[in-house]
Every structure is written in C-alpha cells, then in structure tokens.
C-alpha cells in the first residue's frame, strides 16, 4: 500500500533537512513508536504499537536510515514483527526536501511510504480499516512533523509529540474517513 504526503514549510530546506537528522525527535512524531536502541550507521531498534478495537499489535523490529545529504533525499527501511498476533510489517519511506517553487526560502517536503503488512493484521479487509489505519498513522506522523517544523523554538518543537492514535478513536476516525471517502470528499491524501 503506497501513501504519499506533500507539504510546504516556511523554512529554508537546509534547516528542514537538519531537523530531519534528529532521529529521536522525528521518531517522537510516529504514534505509538519508541526507539529502543541505536546501533550506529543509521541502524535503530524500536517498536510500534497499534490498537484497533480488540486487536493490539506491537511490531518490534529494526530500521535503517540512509540520508543523502547532497540531494536531501532520505531512505528509511523498517521491518517489524508482532509475535503475539503473528503479523509482520514492512515499511519503506522516502522523503525529500526541496526548494519551494512558490515561496522563496521555503521548503517542499514529499513523503512516500510503502507499507506492507502480512499475517493476521493484513487479514481484515472488507471495510478497509487496516489500510485506513496505516494511512492515518502516516497522516498523524506528517502532521506532527509539520507542527514541529513550524515551532519557533527548539523547546517548543521538542514538546510537540505525536497524538495518540489508538483504540476506538482510531477505529471511529477510520470509519469516518471511510464514510467520507464513500461520499467522495477526499482530502489531499492519495492512495494507490
């Protein structure tokens, strides 16, 4: 499942890029995510917990972050396993920070995520709730990043954390989002 987000920030691309290199700060934007260990060379261990109705999945695993400072494009590969439910998740993210074409000095950020689930978590299909959930998690992640980037001081930025996306709030938000989609009022998110 591929999800793309784009947003613009009124900050210089170099400064945005620098922000993205602060991994713990960025990770705090991912709902339910926790970095548990840094192994060096861009490798981290961590976990992501998601709760959907009666089902809780905690994906434990590793990710590798590979930034290209010259082009300001970064690749993140992560994979995790939820042993209790027998699910596996893989995510490949590519984000890039470009000059904003309209506003001088501003930045344009593009985030492409490819989420792949297998096992029990991938078997709930009819209502599209799992797809919606993945998409909402990325949504939340990007919104939190935007907020951090718009903060005026480092302290303020550090205080901005991912909002909790779990339990029934997510369930109903997903449901609402599904219903909204049925009636054709889609947001700026594109799914393929």
């Amino acid at each position, binding site marked *: 499942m591929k999800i793309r987000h784009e947003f613009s920030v009124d900050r210089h691309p170099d400064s945005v890029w620098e922000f993205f290199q602060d991994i713990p700060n960025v990770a705090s934007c991912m709902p339910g995510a926790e970095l548990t260990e840094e192994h060096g060379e861009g490798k981290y261990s961590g976990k992501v917990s998601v709760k959907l109705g009666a089902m809780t999945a905690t994906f434990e695993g590793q990710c590798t972050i590979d930034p290209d400072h010259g082009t300001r494009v970064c690749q993140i590969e992560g994979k995790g396993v939820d*042993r209790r439910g027998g*699910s596996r998740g893989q995510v490949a993210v590519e984000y890039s920070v470009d000059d904003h074409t309209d506003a001088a000095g501003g930045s344009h950020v593009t985030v492409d995520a490819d989420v792949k689930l297998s*096992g029990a978590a991938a*078997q709930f*299909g009819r*209502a599209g709730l799992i797809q919606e959930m993945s998409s909402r998690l990325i949504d939340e992640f990007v919104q939190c990043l935007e907020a951090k980037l718009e903060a005026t001081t480092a302290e303020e930025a550090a205080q901005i954390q991912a909002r909790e996306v779990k339990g029934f709030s997510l369930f109903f938000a997903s449901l609402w989002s599904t219903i909204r989609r049925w009636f054709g009022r889609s947001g700026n998110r594109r799914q393929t």
Partner: protein
Amino acid sequence: MTTTEQPALRTSEQICGMGHNRRRIEDDRFIQGAGNYLDDVKLPNMLHMAILRSPVAHARIVSIDTSEAQALDGVVAVVTGELMAQHNLAWMPTLSGDTQAVLATDKVRYQGQEVAAVIATDPYIARDALSLIFVDYDDLPAVVNPQQGLAGDAPLIRDEKEEQTDNVAYRWETGDAHATERAFAEAATVVELDTFYPRSHPCPLEPCGAVADVNPATGKATIYLTSQAPHAHRTLFALVAGLPEQNIRIISPDLGGGFGNKVPIYPGYVVATAASLLIGKPVKWIESRSENLISTGFARDYYMKGALALDAEGHITAMRAELLSDQGAFFADAQPTRFRAGLFHICTGSYDFPAAHVKATGVFTNKAPGGVAYRCSFRVTEASYLIERLVENAANQIGVDPAEFRRRNFIKAHQFPYRSATGFLYDSGDYHGAMDKALEMVDYEHWRAEQAKGPREDGKLIGIGLASFTEVVGAGNSREYDIAGLKMIDSAELRVHPTGKAILKLGVKSQGQGHETTFAQIVAEELGIPASDVIVMEGDTDNTPYGLGTYASRSTPVAGAATAVISRQLRDKAAKLAAHLLEASEDDLEWEPGKFSVKGAPDRSVTIQDIAFAAYTNFPEGMQAGLEGVHYYDPPNMTYPFGTYVVVVAVDPETGVWEVLKMVAVDDCGVRINPMVVEGQITGGLTEGFAMSNMQWITFDGDGNCIGSNFTDYLVPTAWETPRFDLGQTVTPSPHHPIGAKGVGESATVGSPAAFVNAVLDALKPYGVRNIDMPVLPHRVWEAVQGAPAPA
C-alpha cells in the same frame, strides 16, 4: 419410471417408514447442549497442541528458533518440520496423488501454512508459546492467481518436486474436440461467456480438530477426528504412517457441519498423532475460526471460458469449456482419481446435444490448497453454474424467452436413460415437468408482464432468473470411481436384537444431514420395525463397517441403498423363520410392513418382533441363528437429481443493491425418505447458494494475504438477510436405486447461484450487461451499469 407424485405411505405413523415427516431425533441432544463434539472430548492426562502458521504467502525458511518456547513453563514439546522429517512425516500424500507439507521444512507456500506446533499442558500456554518461536523468513514473490502462475517469469512454487519445472498441477481434457470444433464452425450463433467462480469456504460452525490417543503400552491409536470419512481416513493413516490398521481406531464424534471441509486430512491431525505417539499422552488440537477460514478446505476458484454453438432454430449443437483452476500450493482435491477436474464434465447439464469438449488446467499458487467440493459433487457446482449462465445468455442473444429456450433444448423424459456428450448415463428425469411446475408456482407470466412495464415507481428493475440444474451424485461404481485407490463403495450392517429392536451401523458419517432419523426410516420401511426402535451408529471405525464416507451427496445413493438391501436380505430370512413359526410354506406367506401372514388367513400371522425372538430362540434346524447381516453396495450408476429454480429480484440501478422478491425451488431427488428433512437440506443449500451469489467473498491481496479470516470479512447469512424460499417437488425415482432415492444434500447449493445471478443480469438486460462475477455485490452491479448505454 416417471411419476410426479411421492409414492403413497406404506407404513403407519407408528412404524414411520419412508415418506413420513419424522422429527429429527438427533436434535433432542443438540438443542439440549448434550451433543458430543470434538472439543467435548477430554481424556485423562490430555495435552494441548497449537500450530504456528506462516504469516507470509511465499518465503524460504532461514531458521526456526524454538528455545524460548521450549523453556516456557507448561510446554512439553515444540515440533518442527525437521523433527517430523526425522520420522519421515514432514510430507504426506494428498487425496489427489500430490504431496503436501505437514510442517514446512524448506519454505512456506501459503499464508497460514503449518510451520511448527507447541504441545503444552494447557491450551492457552500452547498458544502463548507460539509467540516465543522465532522464524526467520526470506520473502519470495507470491503467486496469487493461476494467470500469474502460468506466466513465464513466475516463481516456481513446488521446487521440491524433482520433475516439476512450472506451476502446472495438471492438464486434463475430455469430450470430442473434433466434433465440437465442427459444430462451432457450422453454428448459426456462438454464445460465449467468461466468468469466474470465486474461491469460497464451506465454513462449518465447528472447525476441524483431533484428539490423538496413542497408548504406549498397547500401541493402539484412538484418534478422535472431525472426519466426514472416518474409514477412508483410517486406511490412509495406516498407509501413510505405516501403522498397523488394526491398531488404528478413528472416532468421528458429532460434527458441527462439514460441507466438504472435513474430507481432507489436515497436517494438524498428523502432527497431533505423531506428538501423542512420541510423548505417550493424548494430544488435542482444535483450530480457531481464523485458522479454519485461512488454511483449510477452500473450494471453487475456477476461471471458466464457456461457449455454446446454436443452429438457426435455437438448438444447442455443442459446448466447449476451458478452465483455469487455482489449486493453491498443493493439489489436494478430494475427488475420483480418474477425473482431474472432478465431475466438471457434467457441464452439458440438462440439455440434449451431441458434442462437448472440456479442457482443464490446474495451477499451483501461493494460496491454501483449494478444490474441496463445498456442498458439491466434485466440481458439479462450477459445471452447473457455467451451463446455466450460458443458456441464459444464449436465450437473450437470439431473443428467445429463457424458459422457452430451455424447453426447446432439454433432454426429453422419453430419452432416459440418456448418454450425455461427455459420457454420463443419466438415470431418469423429467426436466420439462420440473420447470413447468416452478414457472407455475412463481407465476412466471405475471412477473414477465411486470418486468415489461419498465422500472417500478421506486426506479428498481425487475429481473427473473432461472436455473434448471442436473446434478450427478452417489459416487460411485467401482469401475470408475476411487479416491486415492479406495473404491467408492459403502456399507450397512443391520443387527436385529431378540426383542425386535435393531442397530444399524454405517460407513458414512452425518454432519447434520439427519442420518439417525432417516436411515432408521429405511429399515422401518423394509422390515416394519418402528423407526424409533432402530438406533443408527456411525463414525467409529472399530464398530461400523467400512465405507468411503459422507460427501458428494452419496450417503443416500450408496449407504441408503446398502441399508435397503441388507434390510431386504433380513426380510428374506425373516420369511423363512415366519414359515417355520406358522408351519406354512414360504410361498404361502404375505408381507405387510412388520408382519407375515398366511395368504387367505390373515389371523394366522407373526410380527417381525416375534420372528426376531425366534431367530435366537426357535430357529429351524439347519438355519444359522440370529437376524443380522452386512451389505456392501457397489452402485451400478450415479444418480441424477435435478430441478428448476426461479428467482425474481428488484435491482436498484442507482445503488446496485438487489433484493429477492420471490424464490421458487422445485427439486426432484427421486423418492423422498423424509420430506421434512429433504426440505431442510434444500433450505440450507439455497441459503448457501444465496450467500455465494450475494455476499461471500474471500480475496487475496497482491502479497497473498488472505482477506477473509473472520466473520466481518467472510459473511455468513443470517435469517435477516436470507430471502424466503417456496419449495416444490416432482418425484422421478432412480430406476437403479433400491428405493428410488437420488440424494439431495447438495442440489440447492449447486443449482441456485446461477438462478440468483441470472435474475440480476436479467434485470440489467436494458443496459446490455452480460456478466458480473460472484459475489454480485452492489458496487459490482453499479460499476456494470456505469458506462453502459442508458436503456431506451
């Protein structure tokens, strides 16, 4: 041989022979919660097993680390494929001559495949321990449909088979290709249809399981199994595991539904038995709902390209069908060995034409093994669906009313026995009679007139769909039918006790069909012993005679015949005993159910109960004591139940939602042993047919994840969604069956899906829509209408 009425009752209400609406006696214990299902089996020192299943569809297994699981308190053993391989049990043969992994050793080939098993003192500990097994998978690309499987760059799924170089499981063809081609070349009209019969699941409410109890002192293996075919399973266990057959006892307890799901041998059975053998204690394994839905007994998954050739008068002259079957990772169909595509070649259906040709290709994919005959006699469901959809399209294409088109092409009553273009010998039928009755019951003219008025006030369109199916059931004669080398005979053992009560032991096994009720009625009919005095026993291989089991609607055609024959043989002996007791010649005796009397002297009589007592206490010199016997029945032919179903729907073209306004089902299953039980079977079958056509949908995403592991995704209709069914009957006995019965369990599931789909398409005729694949979900209807030219 043709009649149109059920034969008159020959027995009193008290004896309750054939034709009586005897209430199902097994229901007494079921409705009191006193049934004895597999999960009710609890043995001393019993351990519990849980299975770790693959989360991915296709991957190489790099390593399996079981150390943490093994260390968990309460865990007795962790079994992997490597351990099974040490006992030569990592692979097992399937019922179609392929091999199947018991526990994966080299790679996993579908999501849900068995990878390891934990045996623990408690079922929850066993499940918890699964999360402590670490399997490192190296993902491989997944093949999720047969088209992908045949592509040149497809990964080879069965790379462990030495001679397998592609993903083809089998290629099979039958019929006369040359004659068929010629008919198509000369045809005035060719009607074509590409359609897909989606993967579906039998979904019995009770999932599959086993309790294996191998006694270390005696070596005797008692295996409680959710089995529709306990005797066949015993013999296969003996052949596969090399266990001496006298030491294997399979007990199939009360089954909470089967529908074909409980015919295959599943890896869980084998692992539980091996574990009990190794540990020396009983081991219970019962799968969860999700495990049942993702990994056992799928059916259908057939891509069908069909065509009919018509002459200028609208007569069918030939049919051809090309099939692409998604077999999943292992070819595990339970079907007669000779026929690789099951009995699909019955696809000429109820129609009289000289030429047909069928080509089938089975393909391995990264899905659970498919091909189970879900309430179906080996692919007859797919066959019936294709021809009934084609016939409807043919009628529309040449502008003839679909009922009239059928009437023109039906096999006529005087043509029976009728040899079909693909070689079946239809035993009896009156297709015109059944259709006429259905059309009358539904008031066909009225609905056609309603339809002709155009959309209703609410904008909905009326559609009328027909299906005039012919089934082929009762496998089968030993010349043609075997499964894995086991001939498809069945048996009945009848013992009449001294007081005139009896026990009937059968090789078949009810999963809800009501055998305990109806088979006793056959004995009552033939021997005059009240049905309530006859106990029916099934499912225990140490205590019942051998047989191939209950599936493919074969219990009544085969075991029912065996029951009638053995009852008659005992009646012959009873006549000799009666002659002895009445001091009369056997030729001077008259039989009425339950009693022999001397011709012309009705007060000189003996009851069957008197005779039974004499069989053990006062038998003539030279006669062996007792009144009991066993009969093995080898059917001379299959039986061919048929019927016509008519569905009236209202389709909302704005939303795609359709509702059933009326549904009439006229079935002819020959003589009805218990009309009420027959109607129960038909009602259940129609409900399942409706579900498949209307809502049931199992899909797989591009990575091979099975979407349909739960009841929010895989819908089982309740009384709320299920329409009302009006049932009718005609009775055309089978000429070769001792009591003229044909079998009925599957007819409604076989025949009805095409009727529902035809009805929706009939409503959409103004839009020129020719096909919507099942399930006909609202969005599919809506999509089909979009882009179509607006109706005039």
